[in-house]
């Protein structure tokens, strides 16, 4: 099975942009168009009324999506409508359970290349086996979400399952910046995942942070809440383009090297 996302992450340092499906602030042609040229992979969040690990920006985004008439159960059906094929569906396993896990994965496979459940290994570890089986059945790439509080032995075990990537949540909640040494944590985790691409996210909002992440060993960075906050203040496409460009440039390291990886 071709692993497109895995290939992207192994060929260059990637910028991954998070959007909430159905949030009118971001889920529109204008914004997606402004982001498309700089974005390597899109992360499509499915709105829910139970945003366990999300900070205020994403919670507000879910609320806007649900208030715009989007049904929580059918949000997944909207995910494929913008043609963002090189994407990850990112949502809580709770949401898939409410839909019916197998049906959910099947729908997600029409929209994206990968489904990532941040709560799978924390709240539903007994479902790991069926997640992998369903990924295989529906041609989805498998990937795992971890935090800096994960057991190291488990991280090593996950890497051995050869996921397309491992996603490290850098903070306790999305969008909330805490004074945690992200470069130290990334370095430690990178040491455990070996050559599996490491994607990092949560509260990333500046080129300086992106450079820190890359220098510490990250292969891809995710930005989500920062975009939502920028657009909440002012829906300025130009500002958004400039912001995303600045993050993209920071993916090449400070010595002016391009983001393309030397193989």
């Amino acid at each position: 099975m071709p692993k497109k996302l895995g290939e992207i992450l192994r060929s260059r340092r990637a910028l991954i942009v998070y959007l909430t499906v159905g949030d009118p602030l971001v889920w529109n042609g204008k914004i997606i168009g402004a982001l498309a040229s700089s974005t390597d992979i899109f992360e499509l969040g499915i709105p829910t009324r139970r945003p366990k690990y999300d900070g205020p920006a994403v919670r507000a985004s879910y609320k806007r999506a649900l208030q715009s008439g989007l049904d929580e159960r059918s949000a997944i059906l909207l995910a494929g409508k913008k043609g963002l094929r090189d994407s990850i569906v990112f949502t809580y396993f709770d949401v898939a359970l409410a839909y019916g896990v197998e049906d959910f994965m099947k729908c997600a496979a029409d929209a994206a290349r990968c489904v990532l459940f941040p709560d799978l290994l924390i709240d539903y570890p007994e479902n790991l086996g069926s997640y992998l089986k369903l990924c295989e059945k529906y041609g989805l790439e498998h990937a795992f979400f971890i935090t800096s509080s994960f057991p190291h032995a488990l991280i090593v075990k996950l890497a051995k399952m050869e996921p397309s990537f491992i996603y490290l949540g850098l903070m306790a909640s999305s969008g909330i910046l805490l004074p945690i040494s992200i470069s130290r944590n990334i370095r430690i985790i990178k040491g455990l995942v070996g050559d599996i691409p490491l994607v990092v996210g949560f509260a990333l909002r500046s080129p300086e942070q992106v450079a820190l992440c890359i220098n510490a060993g990250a292969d891809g960075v995710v930005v989500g809440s920062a975009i939502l906050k920028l657009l909440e203040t002012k829906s300025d496409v130009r500002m958004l383009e400039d912001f995303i460009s600045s993050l993209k440039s920071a993916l090449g390291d400070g010595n002016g090297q391009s983001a393309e990886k030397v193989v």
Partner: protein
Amino acid sequence: MVNLPRKWYNIVPDLPSPLPPPRDPEDESFSRIEILSKLFPGSLIDQEFTAERFVEIPEEVLKAYSKIGRPTPLVRARGLENYLDTPARIYYKREDVSPTGSHKTNTSIPQAYYAKREGIKTLVTETSAGQWGSALALACALFDLGCLVFMTRSSYLQKPYRRIVMNLYGAEVEISPSNRTEVGRAFLRENPQHPGSLGIAMSEAIETVLKSSDARYAVGSVMNFVLMHQTIIGMETVMQLEELGEEPDIVIGCVGGGSNFAGLSYPIIGKKLRGEAHEKTEFIAVESEASPKMVRGKYVYEHGDSAGYLPMFKMYTVGRNHVPPAIHAAGLRYHAAAPTLSILIKEGIVRPVAYSQEDVLEAGRIFAKTEGIIPAPETAHAIKQVIEEARVCRQKGEGKTIVFCFSGHGLLDLAAYEKIL
């Protein structure tokens, strides 16, 4: 004789399953995770979420640890063994030798150090037994910081000498619930003689900090960084046991939030979890029936404090608004077991046991007579279990090695023992 360990041990990377992250409540209110930065010095938040297995102890903290008497002795309880006529070999780690009489200084000192380094002027906290408040007051005196302590009413009245200790160290002590905060005033309206609880006092301390710009909150248990600081106990004990040629068969400690139990046991549990050693070692955590979170609580997400200023952590809890009966072992009244301890209990690595205070005072008296040190009523809970295990060893003719944390002395808690004399 062992040297001071130079690193603390963080059990999080060695846990049998992922530690559930803290959460914000699902309502519309402010983010508790966001305000962590207003509550704690940055270095402590960093330690809370570090992926490191071992964390370097700063030189100034090592100096302070040394000043107050670390490394502490690991003592063979021959008097107790002879009295019980048991083949078991019993060792206790003397955390009572700290100037304030308990293990709490192991974390109050680093918390004060990091606060001072970050330019913070005052640390604010709550205390029930007075042990945590005294330990913080001492640490603030050592690092030249202001200190404000909210003390639960029942303890303030039962333990006047604790208040004097804190005042002598330069701290200000306020009765909780107090008129000083909104949360305090609300509880006082309900009941002007409210005995107070650790949860309410915590909320008062936190509210005070949130309204200030140069004060931060200091916490006595539950948080990962606190339990990590306490592992100085176990890191020393591991070296001391090695020097003695002893392998621990049973490790015991009392549990309020879990800090002294974790302090002693985590470095040993860590080796077991990594498959390096101690495959057959048992770990027993002893709580009070007055707050039976480990044996009868639910493993759910709950706020650390009553008013809900702190994030929700997944813990064995009897509910944050549980008000336990006023018992002398006030240090065991907290409603929950620390998240890392809770996961170890859930996974069957640690076995919990609960006793009522009446059961344990006699154990405390036996220890005083046979070993010469009067235990704090909290510590007597651990001693009760030690005696039970030693008796089983006698019945079975097994010479097991039992190690427990002598978390504190009872010299400022003598009223508790009066009733059994």
